[in-house]
Structure formats: structure tokens, C-alpha cells
């Protein structure tokens, strides 16, 4: 039997694995959430109706189907609270992602142009903060930013300010926290595309009369777009749903959608509305994903 035939069968099974994963851990939970989002809240266990009970027979199940409604989605559209939360999430994600791109690009570029033997070290420096728990790092920021925290102490000691500045519970603190936490996710995909780029391309552009600025905009940046796309998606999507950072670092006057969802679920115990919120968020985020996928597909076809 040839090696090819030996490996053919397991290979075919292995190719099913991602689909099994998708069905078990995404589609099935999604179906549950979708069903709950179409239910009504109730003081019961579980806290919503109707409940499908297979044992109750066919008639009961079809009655339960009849009881589903899209009232929760109507609420989301009609109540300012939710619309504003969605908008705030999108704005925060947009601003943070832009800042991330501006900071990460020069870092990634610098890393990619380091001598080969220094690159793994630079890479480690980017990744090392991940070895500490994310929550601990955010709490550390609270420590630094609070009224008598490290930042204010330094500012006061150097006489840059005469009064302690309020940092904590502001949008600035939240953006700082988000940018700090997501920076590696922006740097790494950018670095991956930039390091693969042939240095001769930039030299060729310079040789043909392009100034350093033109070399960047006409050659380096266009060729790094796949990395930019990956980094932006990797940051934008989770930031939209971000809950911990705004909850710990931002003020309480306006909420991101993740916080609203949390409130609905844990404080209000309104599982159906929380589920509907999650479904709408998913739909909002799938749009840019599909767009990115199409762009990548087109690029693949070109190659």
C-alpha cells in the first residue's frame, strides 16, 4: 500500500474537524441564544418562557414555537439605552483601533528591520506581558492612575502639576487600558507581513527616485495591507464587545454594549433581552468579517 493511501483516510477525517468544532461550539450555542432571544423573561427556572420540553409531546413543542416573538429586538431598536451603547462601542473600537494602528505600525516596522538575531528578542518583549494575567495588569493600571497613584506622584514630584489629576474613571484611562492590552494583537500581524517583505523593494523604489516618504506610501504601506487588515480585525472586533476594561477604568456615565449586556444578564436577570443584544452585536461584527474575507479571497485569486 502506498504512503498516499495510508494517509488519505485520516487526512479526510481530519478535514472534518473544523466543521465539527464549528457545529459543537458555535452553531449549537448560537441556536440556544437565538431561541432565548425570542423568548419572554419570567420569574422561573430557567428565567424565560417558553421552554421546549421534548417529553411533553409534539403539541406542546409547536405551542412553544407559537409563543416565540421578536419583541426583544423591537425593544433594542426603540430604547436609546441600547442604541447609544452600540454606538459608543463602535466609536470606542474605531478610535482605539486607529490609535493602535498609529502606535503599532512604527514598532512593527522597526522590529522587522532589526538585525535577524535581535528579532526574536523584540518579539519576546512584545509577548512577555501576556504571561501575567490580564486582570492583574488592568488592576495595576488602576493603581498607577488612581488619585494617589504612581502617575500623580511623579507628576507632583516633578512639579508638572500642582494638584493631583483625575485619571481614573475617565475615557482617557479606558483608551489607555484598551490600547495597552491590544497592542500585541496589532503589532504581531503587522510585523509578520513587514518582515516577509523583500527589503530590495524599498531599495528599488528609492533607486527609481522615490523620496523616503514616497517609498513608504507607494510601496511599504500598500504591501503591508494584509497585515493592517488582520491587525484591525483582531483588535476592532473584541474591543466592540469589551467589558472588563471599560468597567474598571472608564466612568459610569455611558456604557459600552458589553457592559449593557452584562447588566441585563446579571443585574436585570433578563436573559431574553441580553441574548437579543448579543445576537445584534454578532450581526454587526459579522459584516466587517465578511468584507475582510472577500478582500482576502480576491487577493488569493490574484496570486
Amino acid at each position, binding site marked *: 500500500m502506498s504512503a498516499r493511501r495510508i494517509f488519505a483516510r485520516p487526512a479526510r477525517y481530519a478535514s472534518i474537524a473544523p466543521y465539527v468544532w464549528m457545529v459543537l461550539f458555535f452553531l449549537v450555542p448560537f441556536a440556544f441564544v437565538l431561541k432565548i432571544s425570542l423568548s419572554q423573561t419570567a420569574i422561573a427556572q430557567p428565567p424565560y418562557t417558553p421552554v421546549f420540553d421534548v417529553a411533553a409531546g409534539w403539541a406542546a413543542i409547536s405551542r412553544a414555537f407559537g409563543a416565540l416573538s421578536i419583541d426583544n429586538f423591537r425593544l433594542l431598536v426603540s430604547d436609546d439605552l441600547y442604541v447609544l451603547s452600540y454606538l459608543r462601542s463602535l466609536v470606542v473600537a474605531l478610535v482605539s483601533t486607529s490609535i493602535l494602528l498609529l502606535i503599532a505600525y512604527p514598532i512593527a516596522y522597526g522590529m522587522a528591520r532589526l538585525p535577524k538575531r535581535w528579532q526574536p528578542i523584540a518579539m519576546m518583549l512584545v509577548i512577555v506581558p501576556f504571561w501575567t494575567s490580564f486582570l492583574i495588569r488592568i488592576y495595576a493600571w488602576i493603581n498607577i492612575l488612581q488619585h494617589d497613584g504612581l502617575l500623580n506622584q511623579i507628576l507632583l514630584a516633578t512639579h508638572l502639576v500642582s494638584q493631583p489629576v483625575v485619571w481614573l474613571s475617565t475615557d482617557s484611562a479606558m483608551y489607555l487600558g484598551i490600547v495597552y492590552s491590544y497592542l500585541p494583537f496589532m503589532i504581531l500581524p503587522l510585523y509578520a507581513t513587514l518582515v516577509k517583505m*523583500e527589503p*530590495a*523593494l524599498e*531599495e*528599488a*523604489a*528609492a*533607486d*527609481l*527616485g*522615490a*523620496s523616503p516618504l*514616497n517609498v513608504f506610501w*507607494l*510601496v511599504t504601506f*500598500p*504591501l503591508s495591507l494584509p497585515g493592517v487588515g488582520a491587525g484591525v480585525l483582531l483588535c476592532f472586533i473584541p474591543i466592540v464587545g469589551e467589558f472588563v476594561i471599560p468597567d474598571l477604568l472608564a466612568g459610569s456615565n455611558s456604557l459600552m454594549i458589553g457592559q449593557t449586556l452584562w447588566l441585563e444578564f446579571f443585574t436585570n436577570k433578563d436573559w431574553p433581552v441580553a441574548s437579543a443584544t448579543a445576537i445584534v452585536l454578532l450581526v454587526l461584527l459579522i459584516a466587517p468579517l465578511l468584507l475582510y474575507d472577500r478582500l482576502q479571497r480576491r487577493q488569493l485569486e*490574484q*496570486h
Partner: protein
Amino acid sequence: MAEPQVLPAAKPGPLPRANMPLLRIEGVAKKFGSFRAVDRVSLDIAAGEFFALLGPSGCGKTTLLRMLAGFETPDEGRILLGGKDIAQVLPHERPINMMFQNYALFPHLNVRDNIAFGLRRAGMAKAEINTRVAEMVTLVKLDGLEKRKPDQLSGGQRQRVALARSLARRPQVLLLDEPLAALDKKLRESTQLELMELQRRLGMTFIIVTHDQEEAMTVASRIGVMDAGRLDQVATPRELYEAPLSRWIAEFIGEVNLFDGEVRSREAGRIVVSTRDAGAITVAEPRNPVTKATVSVAIRPEKVKLSRRGPVSDGTSSQSINRLEGVITDVSYLGGLTVYKVRLDSGAYLRSSMANTARIDVDAYSLSQRVVAWFTPDDCLVLEQ
């Protein structure tokens, strides 16, 4: 390779020299850390010349080329272009263009935009750019492929785009960094001829970097041989082959038989060198008198003739003809010529190559045959280093 029969004239190669060369490299040196990549190289290149920098990898030829392009700055020395020092001028401000080793075509731009890239940077008018691009496309025979992206082209087509792109700005000097290394042998040979044709037609100055001595000898009118950062010899291809300055160059350019020995006597333009492996060899006194006692005698394989009984006496010179006896141990038939390896009685080997001038050779030598290998004093070269 053609088989030259006579030594070149004693004067340096036939180089058309104006008062000032187009490009003058003066004592240029470049170090990377403690490694001397280029070690005080001086060189003049005239306008319209096709010059080759030849050397093994790591000899500094590419670093020298990159200093001409402006990607590296010399630590010492000057680079004068038309009398002006350009050593510190940035690459994008030099009237010099380069064709890169792996072409470095912009993958996101099509053929037309690749060629137009340099013209747009020069601020040329749109109509003029279109004309120039069309002209370049025709020049390198890429008609009909203007809309293709680089990855939709074959290796040979990509090479042409790179050439057109580097020529489009009509640079004063075109640098070519191993331009044909990525092509297969047949395509490389035809492209070499096209390059020469193009260079002659445009009258432009070309400087090519290559490690392939055959390529350098084919395309260039002068060759600079580099080793360990130094420019060892600058000469025409024929001079380089027939009168290399050192043992190293003789071995690097083509095949050579070398015998180490001591100068025993000299008289009437003849030197007798006594060698361990080939006995006494009579050689013609070179134009630069031999000063050292320990020398090497070099004989190119095609200068070594074989015969069954030894050379037929032709009167005057027969006395000093060198004859070595041995047994043929290897016969390599290469089509145009056959290379014989002869084991001399001393145990040393001698190579002889003979042109296969007749289709049916009844007189061919065979393995284990005893032969006399002979060559004249004029066919030998004395090398002191």
C-alpha cells in the same frame, strides 16, 4: 569560449578614454564591523563601457555596486560621476539606476506601472510617460503584457520588466546585480546577447556584477576581478585569460595547469623553470621581468597538444619545445572539444583539451594510451604570486 591564438598587445586593453572617465572610483573602502568588504578600490569607467565586476561570492563586488547605487556609504574614498563626488548623495537623487538580482518588481503594480514608477517620481508629464513606457515595452519585447502583475509573468518576462524599469529613466549608469542568475542556461545565454545588443544600441554605461566568469567574458568589454574586497586585475576578457596577474586569477578564469618551481636559468628571452612535477619547463620571458626565484608556470589546457611520438621538428624552435610523457587516465567528450587527463611520469596530472574539428576522428586517443604532451615556451605563463 573562443580559443585565442596570440597574446594581446603589451598595452592595456583597447579602452576609449576621454580626458575624464564618466565614473571614477577613488580609494573606496567599506567595513562591516571588522570585516573589510571593500578594501581601497580604485577604478575608472568610461562612458559607453560595458564593465563587469567578477568575483566569488563574498568578494565585495555587490557591496561596491551598492555604494555606486547609494545603498551603502563608503567609509573612505570618493565616487566621482562626471567629476562630481556622489558618495554621500542619497539613492533617489542619483542619475544611476539598478537592476536588482531578484528583480524587486513591485508585486502590487502591473507591468506598465512598474515601468512608469521612476518616470512618475521624476515628475514627467503624463503623455510623455505613456510614450516612454510604450517605447520601453517594445524595447524589451513585452507588448501585450502591460496589464499583467509580476506574478502572472514568467521568469524571463519578469527579467525584462526589471530591465525596462531600470532603463526607463535613461540613467547615466545602469547597474546590474547578477541580472541573469535566476534564468536557466539557454535563456541566460540568449539574454546575454540581447543585453550586449541593447547596451550598444543605447550607448549607455553598464556595470554588471556576476560570479559567472563566462557571463562576464561574454558581455563585458572590460572585467574587474575582485577577491577579498580588493580589485586584483582590470583587463579585457582576453588579457584576463591569456595574461592573468596571479595564480588565483588564472585558476578563477577558466581551466589551467599549474606547476610550481624555481627559476634555474635565463637567456635570450627564455627562462628555464625547474619544477618538481614536470621537470624543466622553458617559458618565454614575460614583459614584466621575473624577479622572484619561486614561481608558478601556467599552461591553459587547449595550449597543450598531444601526440604519439612527440612534436615534429620544425627547425629552429624545436629545441625549446616542452615535452612531457604520460598516460591518458581520463577522456571527457564535451561535444565541441575533448578533454584528456594525462598522468605524467612524476605522478602529477596535466589536462589537455582538443577541438573536435572533424566529425569522424580516427586518430582519437584512448584511455591508458601513452602519449607525449607538448607546448611551446610562448604558451606558458610565469606567475609570481
